[in-house]
């Protein structure tokens, strides 16, 4: 009996030595390892049998938890190494299993569009969703924004916003459709869109992600307005943001919350080296 207790004691001791590095390893695994390597979509559909909706939902929750864990980190480099492409693949697989799952489209639009910058892929995904969620105004609302803001395809943006207006009965979308046709005020429009999204966001990490992006755009808008005043007074564009500070139109160069630096594009539009995303810092 004594020997058995001693063996048990030694085993518990060994367990407590192993468990800390083991837990650390499990926490730090890359996303694809955490998710497990997903089989091809058709094989996944076959293996899910009659549990396709549950498997799809669990894949999306895994992505959300991974993302939530990464963005809660204070370290900007950790945030910048988020595996967006693997997340995108997983969301696509989940939506292949359950094309009705709104969480998948919402996450793709809220995070992946901005960070992976595959706008056309996103709109194809949204149009795939529209075939199933025929009552849902969210999907044309998302697609309309992508068309106008990222792809500068204003006729399609207006078409999508008209559809969102018809489905929701909200005159606001029809007004937006008209405003998108004017092509102006891109930054102000992005702020309006992101504020609408932020209000409806339930998940903390998603809400924070919207909030941060709104801050970045508000700072870009601040530079745009200062530039407008500069042009009105001097009749020409400033060569750099620094000129706006020196001329007293800005107190200082606003700080990009994504860790990048604001600059003026040759056409005068305000941009940042981070491209308004953590991933942009690493790519730059």
């Amino acid at each position, binding site marked *: 009996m004594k020997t058995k207790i001693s063996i048990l004691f030694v085993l518990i001791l060994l367990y407590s030595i192993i468990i800390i590095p083991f837990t650390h390893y499990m926490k730090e695994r890359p996303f694809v390892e955490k998710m497990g390597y997903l089989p091809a979509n*058709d094989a996944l559909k076959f293996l899910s*049998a*009659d549990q396709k*909706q549950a498997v799809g*939902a669990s894949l999306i929750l895994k992505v*959300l938890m991974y993302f939530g864990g990464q963005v809660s980190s204070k370290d900007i480099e950790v945030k910048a190494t988020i595996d967006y492409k693997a997340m995108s693949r997983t969301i696509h697989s989940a939506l292949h299993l359950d094309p009705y799952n709104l*969480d998948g489209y919402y996450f793709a639009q809220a995070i992946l569009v901005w960070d992976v910058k595959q706008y056309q892929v996103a709109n194809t995904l949204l149009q795939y969703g529209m075939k199933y969620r025929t009552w849902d105004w969210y999907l044309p609302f998302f697609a309309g924004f992508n068309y106008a803001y990222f792809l500068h395809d204003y006729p399609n943006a207006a078409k999508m916003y008209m559809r969102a207006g018809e489905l929701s009965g909200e005159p606001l979308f029809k007004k937006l459709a008209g405003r998108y046709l004017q092509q102006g005020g891109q930054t102000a429009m992005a702020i309006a869109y992101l504020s609408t999204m932020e209000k409806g966001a339930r998940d903390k990490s998603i809400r924070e992600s919207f909030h941060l992006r709104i801050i970045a755009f508000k700072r870009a808008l601040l530079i745009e307005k200062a530039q407008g005043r500069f042009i009105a007074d001097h009749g020409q564009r400033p060569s750099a943001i620094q000129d706006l500070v020196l001329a007293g139109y800005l107190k200082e160069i606003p700080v990009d919350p994504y860790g990048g630096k604001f600059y003026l594009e040759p056409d005068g539009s305000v941009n940042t080296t981070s491209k308004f995303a953590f991933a942009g810092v690493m790519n730059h």
Partner: protein
Amino acid sequence: MFRLMLVTFKGIVRDRVLHGVGALSLFFILIPSISSLSMRQVVELSTTLSLSFISLILLVLATLLGSTLLWKDMERRYTFSVLSLPIGRAAYLLGKYLTVSLFVFIVSGILTLAAVIVINVSSGMYPPDRPVSWSFIVLCILFDAMKSLILISFAFLFSTVSTSLFLPVFGTLAVYFAGNASQQVYEYITAGGGSQLPSIIKGAATVLYYFLPNFSSFNLKTYAIYGVQPNFQSLWYVTAYFIVYTAIILVCASIIFCRKEMN
């Protein structure tokens, strides 16, 4: 036959199957908190998890009860004493089948009640954009139960031909997976995806499609979760298919069971 059914039912209850289902059902308590992780569809996720969990319990019940009930009687040679009574072998098999079916329906009813409570709690906490389709949820569980009854008939069929427990258990599971995939495979082959395949394989796949149960038709989860209206006329076809298909399997099982030599 009624007495046989009563004894069988008491046997199932004595084996504490209901206790097992009750213990598993504790998972329902967790569903509202898991669903609250969803970004835009908390109630839909609650419904998804509830329906999937019910499907899973019914699958386990169908596989284990269906596979062990008849097999256990033969293994323990209880059949000898029962068959000496004025009851035919076919009636014996049918009595057993009807008892398990009744048990599955009772469990489905209890689980439906649990699901309704859970979904109600979630929709109270996070009101959904669209109203919950209670009638579709009940319909979905009813068709899931019908699917389980087909599986049980297969488990009985395998029990009549096998002396080991492996064939009924793994055979039933194989039928479950094949039955869920048959429609998808058939559509892939006929829609041009199988143009590279030899014609003999395409022919074999088509024969298998008609031979295997089509469980895709019993899956109404999408309608129940997202409140999309199903085609009610097609559901009558599915019901007719269920009755005829189950009857065929049970008749096959009873033919084999009647001819079986029991030493």
